[in-house]
Each structure stands twice: as C-alpha cells, then as structure tokens.
C-alpha cells in the first residue's frame, strides 16, 4: 500500500475539484487516440455501460462556487436553480469542448429541458435524455428501463464505432461493484471515526471519483482510508448529523466545512448518490442489462428524484440511515429552487418529527458565499442537541 499522507491525497482531490477545465479527463482522452468522454449529470446513470464502451464517464456537477455565470443566465428564468446555468456556462466557454456526449438523467424538468437546450446548442455531440422509470414493477418499469439501457448501449456503440459485449459490461459491473464497496467503506469509516475523516475531505475524495477512471478512484479511496486511519487527529465533542437534500446541485465546500466547524459531524449525506445509488453488488455474470435493471428497480437508494408510491415507506431510507449511523439529528440542506428536494422535504420532516429527531432546514446555491448564518444555525443546533438533547 502507498504511503501517501492524507494531506497529499486531499490536495490532489482538491486540485481535481477546482479544475473546471477537467485537465485529468482531457489527459485520459489524449492518452489514446479515439478515446471518448461522456458527461453525465446527477443523480444516477449506469456508468457501467459507458465504461464498457471504453469511454470515460465524467460527472458534471455545475460550475461550483467561484465560476461567474454570464451566458447561462440567458437560458433560465430567475426562479430556476443554479446548476443548469453554470453547466451551460461551462459548455459555452469551451470547458467541455473535449466531451463527446452528455447524459441528462430524468431528475427534474429543469435537467430534462437542459438536454433539449444541449441538443440545440451542440448539434455535433451525442446527447441522451436518460429516462429512468418511476414505476418499479419488473413487467412495467423493468421492461421500459431495459429498453432505455439497450438504446443507450446502441447509441454508445455508434459513437464509439464498436460493439459492447455482455462480457465488457460484466467486467465494468465488477469494477463498479468494487468501487461502491470502497465508497461504502469510506462512509462507514467516517461514521465510526468522524474526527479522522472530516466531511470536506470525504467530499473531495468522492468528487475526484466524478472525474477519474473508476479503477484510479478505487485506488485513491484505498490510499485515503489507509492514510486517514494511520493519522492521529483530535476528537471533538460534536453532534452527529445526517445531511440530506444535496443530491443534485452541490453546496460550496465552505458550507460543508462550516457545518463541521460549527459542531456537526456529518456522518452520512446524499452528495453524489451516483456512487452509492445501487445498494448491493450487481451480479457480474449472466445478462448484464437484466442485472442492472433489477438492481435499479429493487436495490436502489431513495432520493426525492425517485417516486415512492407507498406513503408508509416514504422516508424509510432516511430513517434507516439515521439509525444505522447513530445520528443525533438531520440537516435538510436543499438548493434554492430545487423542486424535488423542497417538495419532498415536508414529507421527510413529518417522518423525523414523529420520532422526535431534531432537525434544521437550510437552503443554499452552489455559489453561496455568506457562511455566518450557516455557522450560526448549525452551531445553535449542535448546542441544543449536546446540552438539551439525548446525545
């Protein structure tokens, strides 16, 4: 195992996070003639199929805190969230010129419409509106989703100029299973020793996985866990919270840091759910499309972007996470104008209120700059849990 330090690993991840020109992905593409890069937006796409096509899946999560959006504002009304504007800005300013195709999952109307705008703006690129089912019956949503995956596969075959075999996909499924296992290990480690794996570091580590090839990201997580475990860091008397609602537009890194500085260890979250969407290993033998369909239908995480028709089950994922992580409370952090997160929030709040679990709500944009109100809110929340709660 490598002897890299946490500092080295995090610095590497931070560089990848801040690099809006995606140098590492460009280098991957330039290393072998004919390689292709496929961008994708939150919440979930089957990266296994992209990988099986010999292409690099590249997570696009907006322009972040420091990007000035000029062109992007022309495409969306003022009451729309920021991630589509900054994503258009990335494209129009040439930062995505090396990206050969884009996938837009069916997370909300805004992202669906962004796929249409992309088709109009970038006619020479492969653009796919990735329409995941909201019906989870095998004979309805399953059939639909299998067709969707086959269409995706065929589209990528045309783009890449070669067939994607079942063996290719099974091999990729195997690699992504391995990657998910390490993602879960990092999350487990953070929950067990939150002072050894600050959330800002874990976040950067997961963000690196949006850019790096899956094999490289798995190695990076292995190195991080070894280094973080070996490093001695002071334990803080913080409360433990689950952060939920941030599954699409990402909060600024400073917000995550501010929450922990204010006394809240984040012991679980829903950032970049793509790397934990499938809750179990997908079988890496047999019909890979069928296996990916079944995993999606029956073993996927619950987010507001996924319809749950049983009101008694709604919120169970959050409640299970709170219990599993031994969390003292919940922070509902939603991007401003995020319909899925904000529409789901009252239902989820009713679940935690019924169990007398403390919670706070806050809104952010990817470029939110004022952290004082966040610190104040999170700080008083932590104090109320530590002094007046059961923790």
């Amino acid at each position, binding site marked *: 195992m490598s002897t890299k330090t946490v500092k080295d690993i995090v610095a590497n991840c931070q560089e990848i996070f801040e690099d809006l020109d995606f140098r590492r992905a460009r280098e991957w593409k330039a290393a072998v003639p004919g390689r292709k890069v496929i961008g994708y937006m939150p919440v979930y796409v089957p990266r296994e199929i992209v990988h099986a096509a010999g292409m690099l899946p590249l997570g696009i999560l907006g322009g972040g805190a420091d990007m000035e959006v000029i062109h992007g504002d022309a495409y969306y009304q003022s009451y729309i969230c920021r991630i589509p504007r900054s994503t258009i800005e990335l494209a129009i300013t040439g930062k995505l010129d090396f990206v050969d195709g884009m996938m837009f999952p069916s997370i909300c109307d805004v992202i669906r419409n962004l796929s249409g705008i992309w088709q109009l703006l970038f006619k020479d690129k492969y653009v796919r509106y990735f329409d995941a089912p909201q019906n989870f019956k095998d004979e309805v949503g399953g059939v639909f989703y299998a067709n969707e995956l086959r269409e995706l596969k065929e589209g990528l075959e045309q783009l890449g100029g070669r067939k994607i075999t079942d063996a290719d996909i099974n091999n990729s499924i195997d690699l992504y299973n391995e990657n998910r296992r390490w993602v879960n290990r990092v999350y487990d480690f953070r929950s067990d020793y939150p002072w050894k794996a600050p959330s800002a570091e874990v976040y950067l580590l997961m963000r690196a996985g949006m850019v790096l090839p899956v094999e490289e990201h798995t190695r990076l997580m292995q190195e991080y866990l070894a280094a973080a475990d070996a490093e001695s860091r002071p334990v803080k008397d913080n409360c433990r919270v689950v952060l939920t609602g941030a599954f699409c537009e990402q909060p600024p890194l400073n917000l995550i840091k501010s929450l922990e500085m204010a006394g809240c260890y984040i012991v679980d979250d829903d950032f970049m759910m793509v790397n934990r969407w499938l809750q179990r290993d997908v079988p890496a033998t047999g019909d890979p499309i069928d296996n990916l369909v079944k995993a999606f239908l029956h073993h996927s995480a619950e987010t507001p972007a996924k319809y749950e028709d049983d009101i008694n089950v709604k919120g169970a994922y959050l409640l299970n996470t709170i219990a599993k992580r031994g969390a003292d409370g919940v922070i509902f952090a939603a991007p401003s104008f995020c319909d899925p997160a904000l529409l789901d929030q009252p239902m989820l709040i009713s679940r935690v209120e019924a169990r007398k679990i403390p919670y706070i709500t806050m809104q952010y944009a990817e470029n939110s700059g004022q952290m004082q109100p966040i610190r104040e809110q999170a700080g*008083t929340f932590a*104090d109320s849990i530590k002094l007046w709660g059961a923790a």
Partner: protein
Amino acid sequence: MTTSIGIDVGSGVIKTALFRVENDQSEWLARWDARIRQRDSFKLVEESVEYVLEKAGLKRSEIDYIATTGEGESIKDSTGHFYTMTTHARGALYLNPEARAVLDVGALNGRAIAIDGRGKVLNYRMTSQCASGSGQFLENIARYLGIAQDEIGGLSVQSTNPEKVSSICAVLAETDVINMVSRSIPPSDILRGIHESMADRLIKLLKSIDVTGGVVMMTGGLALDIGLVKAIQDGMDKQKMVTKVATHPDSLFAGAIGAALWGAFRHDKLQSLGQLRKAS
C-alpha cells in the same frame, strides 16, 4: 469534581476562564484576558491556557474539558465548541441568577438573547452587518474625539444636552460626529447621543424577541461602559418597559464563563452516557 476551561475568542479580546464544578457548585479558579491587537490568536490562546493552569496550580492532564466559543472553532486542542449565544446565556446566569435576557455587545456586533432559568436560549436576534451597534464603532469615535476608551462612559453620563446621531449606519454616524466636533459640541453630549443611538438599536432587538420585562444582563466588552448601560435603562424607562438592565464587573468574561460551565456540564453528561471518548 470536574475541571474545565472556557476560551472566548472575540474579535477584539480573548478571554479565558478556568472552573471547578462539583455538585452544582462552581468555583472560578483563574482568569486571563488580553486584547488581540493584530497578534496571533492561536498563540494568545495557548498563552492564556498556560497562564490559568499555572494560576490554578493544575496540569493540562487534569482538565476534563476545554470549551471554545466566539471565533474559537479552529483551536485544535479544544474538546468542543459552543456557539456565542449559548455561552453568553450561561455566563449571564452565572453572573446574575435573575437574568432572563442578555444583551451581548462586543467589538463587532450586538445580540439580544432570551433565556430561561437554566440558561437555555429561547430566542435571539443580532444586529445587522452595519457596525453602528458595536464596540469597534465606539472605539473609532473615541479616537476622533481624542479621548481614551475608558473615559467614554464617565463622560457620557455627564451629558446635559445629547446630540442626536444616525442610528442606521456607522459611516453616517461617524460623519455626524465629525460635523459635531467642528460645531464645538461637547464630547459628553456627542457620546451620550451615540449611546442613545446604540441603545435604541439594542432595545429594538430585545423587543423583537419579546423581552419586555425581567432582568436583562449586559455581557461583552461594552457591558462595562456605564454610559451605554444608563442609556439603555433610560431608553427602556422612556418606553415604559418594566425591564431592569444589570451589569457586572466580570461581564467581559460571560462567554468564557459560559463555555467553561457548559464544558463541565457536557463532560458530566458524556460520562453518565458512557461516551467520554467523544470528549477525549
């Protein structure tokens, strides 16, 4: 018996207090405070901890909980951090058990905090980002008037004809003051006018959190400014609020006291829960 240190890192002054708590009885063993004056806050904190330990005749290993408050989140050796409202509420109650509200006025802003008899924060409100309700503003005015800071309160209470000053904006207020100086307005009337302007803002904060009666404890650096304390009491009387403003010679330490006492409380709670690792 639990021994704890509270460190309040303010924007102007660092305050440190060392307490011993046993069976709800607390004993204040040592204290330290110093203005930051562009020095390294981390070094000052370290210095303060060494000082109070030596004063109390204790070793660091004998301290059960080091609690920070104010801007002290980044101090590495602390056990935990409490937010400013939480610690000032507890500190105010320590200094005056009758307190049911707190006015914490420090270098950069002012806060009104409603509390209960246990020191639990029930509600709070802060001054907006404008500095005209803060100690830094008063420091600037003292400089314009060529007087020492500790003269401000004494001069203000001698005023016979206070000059009205803008209560909206520090920049406008400072311009007002420069004009007053050129019109030969006595410093006592200028200072009383400023105190009334600040009192007006602070009373509004108290009213916004429904504090209209009981004892309001002043904490933070300006709690020692007798001119401001009098202006607040006069303003409340004028508005027929049945509220009594109180202050204490140790009001400056309220945050550090609160941090130390909550730290001790937290240590005992974790111990009873068998979770002391969280505070090791």
